[in-house]
């Protein structure tokens, strides 16, 4: 190697790292300015909630419809009957959602991989993915109940059906979005379909798969709760808890269960966003 080329190499590398550190600082300063506006909004919303609760308590005189926020908060730690129930049901719903998500991942990725192998397979199978997406799931739920019972299995099936479409479409999109010249690079080396799939298409599809995963995770929680609302038997989850609390005019309980369900949705969304950054964030910007 001639010495004359080194300055170009090193200087451009330092320029790159400088640009990168500049971006990092920008990111941090953006984050530090980002945390307080939502907090202000939260405080305002809390105030509004108290006002509405006061209105329902004193004017409408139905305090259980909109309970005071501190009463809702107490359900999370201080209700000897309700608090254990809340966490037990959260656990059940989480189990259903995660099992459904796992099924959606396995079936969805397998389905998309199969379709990516040949155009004719894609043409044969893709319409069914769309159809599955178009079926109003609520219309299907009673049938699933009568076919598979009203317990864990049916709940998981509902969660799977709701969560599967983003897995199929994102995986397929990712597998097909590989650069043509990269594919030709593999072709020139005589790489077979399987090698191309494992060494090129799958890694290249990872960012897209993770985006699908994040959406599917949120949907699987929705699916688990929808399933719960319909299937009252078996181990109950948050859906049942919300229904029962409403029926018993337990306002604070209803709100606590709704909040926990929302937090579960947010938690899985954040978790898979974080996982995506850990796995592919090194080489891919999720923006």
């Amino acid at each position, binding site marked *: 190697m001639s010495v004359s080329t080194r300055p170009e190499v090193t200087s*451009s590398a330092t320029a790159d790292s400088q640009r990168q550190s500049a971006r990092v600082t920008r990111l941090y300063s953006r984050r530090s300015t980002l945390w307080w506006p939502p907090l202000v909004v939260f405080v305002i919303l809390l105030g509004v909630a108290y006002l509405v609760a006061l209105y329902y308590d004193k004017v409408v005189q139905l305090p259980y419809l909109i309970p005071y926020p501190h009463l809702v908060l107490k359900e999370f730690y201080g209700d000897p009957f309700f608090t254990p129930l809340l966490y037990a049901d959260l656990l059940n719903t989480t189990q259903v959602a995660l099992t459904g998500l796992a099924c959606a991942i396995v079936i969805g990725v397998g389905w998309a991989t199969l379709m990516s192998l040949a155009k004719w397979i894609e043409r044969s199978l893709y319409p069914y993915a769309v159809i599955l997406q178009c079926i109003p799931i609520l219309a299907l739920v009673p049938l699933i109940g009568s076919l598979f019972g009203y317990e864990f299995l049916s709940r998981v099936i509902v969660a799977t059906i709701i969560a599967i479409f983003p897995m199929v479409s994102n995986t397929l999109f990712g597998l097909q979005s590989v*650069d043509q010249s990269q594919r030709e690079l593999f072709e020139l080396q005589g790489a077979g379909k399987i090698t191309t799939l494992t060494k090129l298409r799958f890694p290249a599809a990872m960012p897209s798969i993770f985006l699908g995963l994040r959406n599917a995770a949120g949907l699987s929680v929705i699916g688990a709760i929808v399933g719960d609302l319909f299937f009252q038997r078996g181990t109950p989850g948050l859906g049942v808890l919300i229904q029962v609390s409403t029926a018993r005019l337990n306002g604070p309980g209803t709100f606590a269960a709704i909040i926990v369900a929302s937090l579960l949705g947010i938690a899985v969304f954040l978790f898979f966003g974080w996982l995506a950054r850990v796995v592919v964030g090194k*080489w891919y910007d999720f923006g």
Partner: protein
Amino acid sequence: MLSMSTPALMKPSRSAASSGTLLDFRKVAMQFPNGTVALSGIDLTVNRGEFVTVVGPSGCGKSTLLRIASGLETASEGTAEVDTKRIGYVFQDATLLPWRTVQDNVELLAELGGVKPKERQAKAKEAIDLVGLGGFEKNLPRQLSGGMKMRTSLARSLTLEPELFLFDEPFGALDEITRERLNDELLRLFVEKQFAGLFITHSVSEAVYLSTKVVVMSGRPGSIVGTFDVPFPMPRDPDIRFTAEFAELVGEVSHALREGHS
């Protein structure tokens, strides 16, 4: 040995080897299924020790020429013979896999060819040093400049120890300074590794500077309108670019380009 897939229509002909011809196109024509005629009546040879550059306006089919040579496309007429399995191909962009480090990217082709890890690591290390990227083995492509990406791409092909090196406008997207530097690097590699080169470009001065022979193409359908031997010796002095002889040859080639274009 690293093996290239041998495309069906390019069975190596041993007869050509004796004369030192690595690539032999006779009356090659290319018509795409949609009716577009990309190439017609192309006669082109690349011998051992030659560095042939093809210049032509964009859309004249010069990339198609390269794709036929590599086996990515099959000529619809004529014979296209390539007398080696060791072909390097450098694409317009670096085509690095963004999730692989420089080291792993350079190892890729050997890996696909079934070379054992120890052996391909050594090959990659050697190629990385050869293109001046020593110390950047652990970097990801996103951390590299455009010129460094292209060097990585070159190193990747070098691991195949190619006898015939095909370049599809590899430096077209780079700035002038980086481009000239990489041209010098390429010439050094050419002298050192003694591969034969077929280089596509739309820059006339790059063509004259790099090659032993310049082929001028005109478009629609792509055909050869002129061939120029470049008399300057190898290894080439970078300052040759500022001599009158160099300017004169660039002028002649540019003239042929314009004639063919009108």
